[in-house]
């Protein structure tokens, strides 16, 4: 078998050195009741060719984003990733290296993490960022837990415009740890009044930016109210490219900013692996979860980097840890930082403008149709109210080879939202794609008598 180096004579020699007569001897502690004489009932080994055929057949059954007009967003976005990124992350020394616990021989990893932390902090307008987390949704939950620790209070007020999956994850994790979650409902056509829900037990208020219907909202006034109540403002960013164009959350008074970094450097990958981003103010540093990379010097006085402040983490504090996180998202963070380095700040701003321009074009092209735009403002995602049900429409358009966004009921099943559709446009969407979508929608509406 190609991944196993030993020859039969190797095994014989090694057993002799050990003083065992067979491998079975080495498993003598396994209880008889659990002893397996034969391999488990699964197919036996396969060549590369056979594996390729098998997995390619599964791959062929899926409609890929690059092959069709593609308007699906909802927390994961298709952006163009430069070829350099995938080349670099496949280098042996990045792909197959371990967590940098021996810093003398992992300065490559540590330096890129330091650069990554700097980029994330700068993009968010915050003072310090960690070395990444699993994804945006778990980062958001960790932010609430952190706010509870910092304020020593329990309640979290959650915007109705937070991605429904993120709300769901919070309910699962926070609900278990003595917290209370106060959910504002999802409303259209009016601003949320989250400040009205503040009281003396509020640890934090959580908002999304742009929110999950695609609207950027200025939360500076909310930040003031939250701070007056002694609570923290947590801002969740699911489309990090937006920060190329929108005012930074830190500049609007956020105390903790979390996000999903997938948009930069990482492909769609059917939902994972992604990369969680987490940043906060310097004064809350010790309550921040996740790995941290810091600068120092070595015995010769040369600058170097190490994982630091590890005593917050599980392997040291055990039952007093700030979270049970073990891994960060290493290679995905590397992909993020490479792409961000290739773009540069100005490049990200230009990319963001291109995204926004695509949506302006789409929204303009939709104007003649009897479709209501639910957003007052947008970046690269909008929510529309159609005169017909959105989910069956999306199925029909998929059958015609157009991936026309996400029916809101996919994320928030409720009869109230049956006609709502969420559409995203990134820089990969062409004029032809937009025309195709708009004419398909027009046809669908006219067939429905609209």
């Amino acid at each position, binding site marked *: 078998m190609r991944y196993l180096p030993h020859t039969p004579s190797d095994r014989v020699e090694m057993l002799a050195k050990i003083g065992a007569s067979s491998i079975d001897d080495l498993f003598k502690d396994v209880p008889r009741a659990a002893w397996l004489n034969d391999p488990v009932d699964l197919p036996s080994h396969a060549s590369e060719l056979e594996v390729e055929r098998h997995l390619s057949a599964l791959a062929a059954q899926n409609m890929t984003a690059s092959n069709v007009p593609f308007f699906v967003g909802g927390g994961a976005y298709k952006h163009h990733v430069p070829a350099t990124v995938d080349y670099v992350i496949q280098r042996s020394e990045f792909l197959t290296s371990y967590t940098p616990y021996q810093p003398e021989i992992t300065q490559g990893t540590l330096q890129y993490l330091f*650069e990554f932390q700097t980029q994330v902090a700068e993009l968010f307008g915050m003072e310090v960022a960690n070395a990444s987390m699993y994804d945006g949704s778990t980062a958001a939950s960790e932010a609430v837990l952190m706010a509870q620790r910092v304020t020593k209070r329990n309640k979290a007020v959650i915007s109705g415009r937070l991605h429904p999956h993120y709300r769901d994850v919070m309910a699962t994790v926070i609900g278990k740890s003595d917290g209370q979650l106060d959910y504002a409902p999802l409303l259209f056509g009016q601003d949320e009044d989250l400040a009205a829900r503040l009281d003396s037990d509020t640890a934090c208020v959580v908002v999304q930016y742009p929110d999950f219907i695609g609207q950027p*909202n200025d939360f500076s006034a909310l930040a003031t109210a939250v701070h007056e109540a002694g609570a923290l403002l947590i801002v969740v960013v699911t489309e990090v490219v937006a920060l190329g164009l929108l005012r930074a959350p830190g500049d609007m008074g956020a105390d903790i900013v979390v996000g999903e970094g997938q948009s930069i450097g990482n492909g769609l990958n059917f939902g994972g692996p992604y990369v969680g981003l987490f940043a906060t103010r310097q004064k809350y540093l010790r309550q921040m979860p996740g790995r941290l990379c810091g600068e120092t010097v070595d015995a010769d006085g040369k600058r170097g980097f190490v994982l630091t402040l590890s005593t917050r983490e599980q*392997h040291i504090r055990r039952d007093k840890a700030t979270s049970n996180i*073990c891994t960060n998202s290493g290679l995905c963070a590397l992909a993020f930082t490479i792409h961000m380095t290739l773009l540069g700040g100005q490049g990200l701003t230009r990319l963001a403008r291109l995204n926004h321009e695509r949506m302006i074009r789409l929204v303009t092209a939709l104007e003649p149709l009897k479709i209501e735009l639910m957003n007052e403002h947008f970046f690269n995602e909008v929510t529309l109210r159609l005169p017909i049900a959105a989910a069956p429409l999306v199925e029909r358009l998929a059958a015609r080879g157009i991936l026309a966004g996400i029916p809101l009921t996919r994320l928030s099943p409720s009869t109230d939202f049956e006609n709502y559709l969420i559409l995203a446009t990134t820089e990969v969407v062409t004029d032809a794609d937009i025309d195709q979508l708009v004419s398909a929608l027009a046809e669908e509406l006219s067939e429905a008598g609209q």
Partner: protein
Amino acid sequence: MSETFSGNRGLQLEEGLIFEIGAFDKSGVDLAVPADMPLRIGVASREPIALPGLSEPEAVRHYVRLSQKNHSIDAGLYPLGSCTMKHNPRLNEKMARLPGLSDIHPLQPVSTVQGALALMDELAHWLTTLTAMPAIALSPKAGAHGELCGMMAIQAAIAARGELAHRKRVLVPESAHGTNPATAALLGFSVDEISATEDGRVDVVDLKKKLGDDVAAIMLTNPNTCGLFERDIIEIADAVHAAGGYFYCDGANFNAIVGRVRPGDLGVDAMHINLHKTFSTPHGGGGPGSGPTVLSDRLAPYAPRPFVRRDGQGFSLVEHADDAPEAFGRMVAFHGQMGMFVRALSYMLSHGSDGLRQVADDAVLNANYILASLQDVMSASYAGPCMHEALFDDSFLRGTGIDTLDFAKALIDEGFHPMTMYFPLVVHGAMLIEPTETESKASLDQFIATMRALVKAALDGETERFHQAPRFAPRRRLDETRAARQPVLRYHAPSMAAAAE
């Protein structure tokens, strides 16, 4: 004073930070010029982002130079106990990059991704069959996340029995990995430690004393963190079940028994599997991992959303609370680490069940070969045979003035990544060595010879070799005290710092 003018030493090239070498008006991406349209963003625009860019040639050079400072399993043996640093097959990478598996969105209509759901279902089949467990949660994003999943399922089962108020204790061996008590505490449980016997196993007498009707669960690793199979595990499982508790198994060491022993046959109720350990997905310098968690019949109803369901001829995804009322909730947005599922399945298909059984056999063989070859000069903590990893403590270094850390740093100068140090906490100055099955006999022999030579050097009084190590790595020992006392966690431009003064 540097020996060279550039500060470089042959192929060891120094490299600055992107903030030192880049420029604000540089970029390595060609983008169209956006049309000059009035913005409809509704909020103020971003101030200029103070992050530099690099052209493509500069970026490639920067990252290639950084990569050259890293050790990796592709370059040499990583004897890291409990990490299972095995070879990462490149076929896995090729398969994960098939557009049909990578260029698909989690929220596309389910009818357009039937192949992806079929793949998840097939992976689930392999994992549940290998473990003899009826159900699995695929969504946890890493091992620790899988632990959380398993313990949440247990908590849900206890709540369903109306016993949540009084079943608040979790039993954990003293040798457990730190994530175990951290997970239990996160869920509001109190943690009771169980002591070990002289031969490194869970003390069943102590365990039974600590059982009671207020015990929610036991969290065990098997083989345990000392690299030993828990012989009494079925008796332990039975005792815990009889007391009304559940058995969580940390699957970090599954590589020792995959294809040889099925955790379901041992009485396990929940076990996370580290795809990045047993199933060869790359460690990536710290992630991403993947921690699917298998569940027993008693816990299956509480498995989190989303999960794949067979639906007549095809597959559907169960995502909403109304469609799975007993599920304890959702652990992540979207469906889990699909990229790692593809890699792991590619690996499983390649090995097949016969190959996977051989994996465990060779992993255990290799660890015992190392144990047998070093135990006369180093202090093995427990008599053999071990499973897939061998544990030593630092008593063989007593009186030399050299500790485990010094020994490990000297190993770096010899071209090896050190073994796991100071874990488990139950022995002094622990050195935990796990070679994995992908090391050849020649590779092991070279490691063994080097270790024997280092031991001799230590006993011969060559303390400076150890105290000064590493001397040949890209960096000498780093000042971790300074990093913690004066944290510098991001770059600050010198001009900004000067202005601030």
